[in-house]
């Protein structure tokens, strides 16, 4: 929701026609989950057990408001003194004293001690109102945090009166037009121990810190948010040296942008298997395989290629330290150290068990937000399973992949499968994967070689052939495997077959040459015979012509002789003509 940045502080609050006006909390991820932040001019209840971050949530709300929006805030502390509070959040980089000096923050510590107070009849909590009002007016605060209001219940015995006063307080806060955060301790089966939630109708947020298998995970849930759409799930959150960050689920909608742009895998032969282009930008790539099949090498090749393109890469190493990754990849000819030095490659190494799965993902999320990489590598993803149960792993990975897709970040993850691993059981995430490479061992003739094939690659034509996957000091390469009579041949068997084939080819060419020579000889023979025959023919023709000429002469001679004879006997010739006439009729 777009919030009018110019916040007018009018006494009463009302929902804008477009919905609830919201105040950004500035807490990473939280504003996304709530679609803008906390309801402006209303009271939000933040409840949860001890140590789940309620106070920090409140403090960050105020500090962010002061720092980013210059909205002054009041922190009414019932549990910690001003000095304690300031010290506690100083480690998060919050300069409370500075904000107080700049009149952007007031911290008022209210001590409630039953032993010091003697109740002697009717009273009310007007003093609290006076103090709060004074604090608000003194700096023109628009944000108020009361931490933890329930302390009052331990300080005063008249619960009926307290409840009436609390009701008055909440309506007073609303009337005052401040955006308030009230924290409350979690009760047995209820959101808060003293049922504060019944006074807060606008927004209730529950924080939780669960321990499971000795790993604790913090979660945040929006119990209700009147007048606003909000995510209803539990969102993991993290408190680290920069404060609070919530991992928003971006998968509320499935409308991530898609790219037709291709990015090279770093292995030319693999690019050729993928229509010659490589992975789609922003797609998720899974490299799965058994131990020692070169999954990490493939991932590292991609990281190297991305760095070469001038992009930033974030490498999450979950089993090796950063130095170890660099050294190991040095053995296949990748110089990752110089990418690190240039700031293009960031390797974040963490033991999977160091914290819960959600924490890992929140940490990844944070790192991605900070570094804004073009490619993310998680190596290996499967070790995260040790930090949560498979079902949770899947749901978290959905979030991670979705998030990376929204950001158009290409993500290469590796997964270790056991020897008997079926293709469809690999963390159950195959359906989330766009391109799935499988590397497997091929054991033949006393040798272990590696084969790589593409299980799937969405949206592109791809080779369906197994390639032999060769890792050398020059990097990773793929060669087409040989298909022999006994199936796929790799390694020396392939080389053997290849040399055999070469020999065969050689023999074949020799045969052809021989046959060619033979044919040539034959042709020459035929041509010779043809020449001889033609000669004979020519001679015969010559003779024929001579013969013809001779007989012509003879005829001529005979004719001249006859002519001379005819000149002497003409009538005889007339008679001859008459005879021929008779024959014709």
């Amino acid at each position, binding site marked *: 929701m777009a919030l009018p940045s110019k916040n007018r502080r009018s006494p009463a609050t009302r929902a804008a026609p477009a919905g609830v006006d919201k105040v950004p909390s500035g807490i990473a991820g939280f504003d996304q989950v709530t679609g803008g932040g906390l309801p402006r001019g209303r009271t939000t209840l933040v409840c949860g057990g001890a140590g789940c971050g309620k106070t920090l949530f409140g403090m960050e709300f105020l500090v962010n408001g002061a720092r980013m929006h210059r909205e002054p805030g009041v922190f009414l502390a019932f549990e910690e003194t001003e000095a304690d509070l300031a010290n506690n959040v100083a480690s998060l980089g919050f300069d409370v004293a500075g904000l107080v000096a700049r009149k952007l923050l007031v911290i*008022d510590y*209210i*001590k*409630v001690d039953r032993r*010091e*107070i*003697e*109740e*002697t*009849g*009717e*009273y*009310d*909590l*007007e*003093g*609290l*109102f*006076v*103090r709060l*009002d*004074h604090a608000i007016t003194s700096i023109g605060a628009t944000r108020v945090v009361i931490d933890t209001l329930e302390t*009052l219940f331990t*300080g*005063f015995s008249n619960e009926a009166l307290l409840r009436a006063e609390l009701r008055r307080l909440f309506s007073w806060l609303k009337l005052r037009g401040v955006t308030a955060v009230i924290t409350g301790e979690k009760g047995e089966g209820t959101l808060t121990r003293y049922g504060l939630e019944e006074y807060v109708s606008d927004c209730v947020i529950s924080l939780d810190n669960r321990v499971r298998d000795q790993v604790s995970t913090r979660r945040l849930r929006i119990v209700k948010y009147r007048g606003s759409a909000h995510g209803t799930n539990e969102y993991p959150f993290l408190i680290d040296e920069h404060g609070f960050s919530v991992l928003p689920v971006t998968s509320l909608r499935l409308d991530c942008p898609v790219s037709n742009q291709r990015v090279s895998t770093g292995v030319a032969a693999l690019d050729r298997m993928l229509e010659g282009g490589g992975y789609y930008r922003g797609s998720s790539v899974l490299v799965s395989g058994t131990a020692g099949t070169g999954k990490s090498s493939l991932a590292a090749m991609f990281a190297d290629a991305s760095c070469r393109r001038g992009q930033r890469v974030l490498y999450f190493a979950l089993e090796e330290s950063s130095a170890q990754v660099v050294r190991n990849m040095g053995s296949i000819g990748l110089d990752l150290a110089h990418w690190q030095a240039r700031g293009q490659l960031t390797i974040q190494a963490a033991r999977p068990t160091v914290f819960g799965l959600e924490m890992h993902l929140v940490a990844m999320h944070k790192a991605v937000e900070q570094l804004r990489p073009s490619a993310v590598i998680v190596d290996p993803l499967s070790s995260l399973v040790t930090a949560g149960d498979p079902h949770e792993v899947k749901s978290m990975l959905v979030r991670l992949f979705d998030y990376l897709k929204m950001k158009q970040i290409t993500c290469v993850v590796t997964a270790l499968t056991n020897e008997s691993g079926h293709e469809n059981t690999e963390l159950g995430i195959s359906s989330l994967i766009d391109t799935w490479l499988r590397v497997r061992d091929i054991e033949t003739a006393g040798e272990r070689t590696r084969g790589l094939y593409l299980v799937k690659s969405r949206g592109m034509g791809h080779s369906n052939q197994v390639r032999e996957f060769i890792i050398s000091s020059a990097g990773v390469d793929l060669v087409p495997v040989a298909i022999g009579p006994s199936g796929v041949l790799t390694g020396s068997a392939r080389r053997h077959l290849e040399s055999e084939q070469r020999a065969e080819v050689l023999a074949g060419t020799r045969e052809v040459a021989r046959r060619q020579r033979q044919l040539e000889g034959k042709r020459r023979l035929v041509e010779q015979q043809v020449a001889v025959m033609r000669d004979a023919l020519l001679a015969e023709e010559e003779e024929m012509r001579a013969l013809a000429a001779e007989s012509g002469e003879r005829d001529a001679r005979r004719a001249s002789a006859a002519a001379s004879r005819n000149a002497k006997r003409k009538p005889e010739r007339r008679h001859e003509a008459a005879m021929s006439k008779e024959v014709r009729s």
Partner: protein
Amino acid sequence: MSPAKKPPAKKQTAASAEFLLRLYVAGHTPKSLTAFENLKTICEEHLEGRYRLEVVDLLENPSLARGHQILALPALVRQLPPPVKKIIGDFSNVERVLVGLDLVPVTAGRRA
């Protein structure tokens, strides 16, 4: 609260005041008035000539609430003699007020 408008003067045996009391109220509400009346009666009866009573209206001086950690009103703070004691309410329960001011022998049951 009309009588309270003479804060530093009420029954002042000047420097010799044994009891230094400060009453915090917020505005001239009926509750404030009742509290003041009740308190005055108790003081006159039990502390005659030995006390000095200041009345602080927090609506006029809100910042003063911080010093004595005032939360509930009306509130009476016994600044002298030490230790500092705090009593809240309209002082209608005389017994409790006396307990709160340490004016009742321990036998009367302090922590009732």
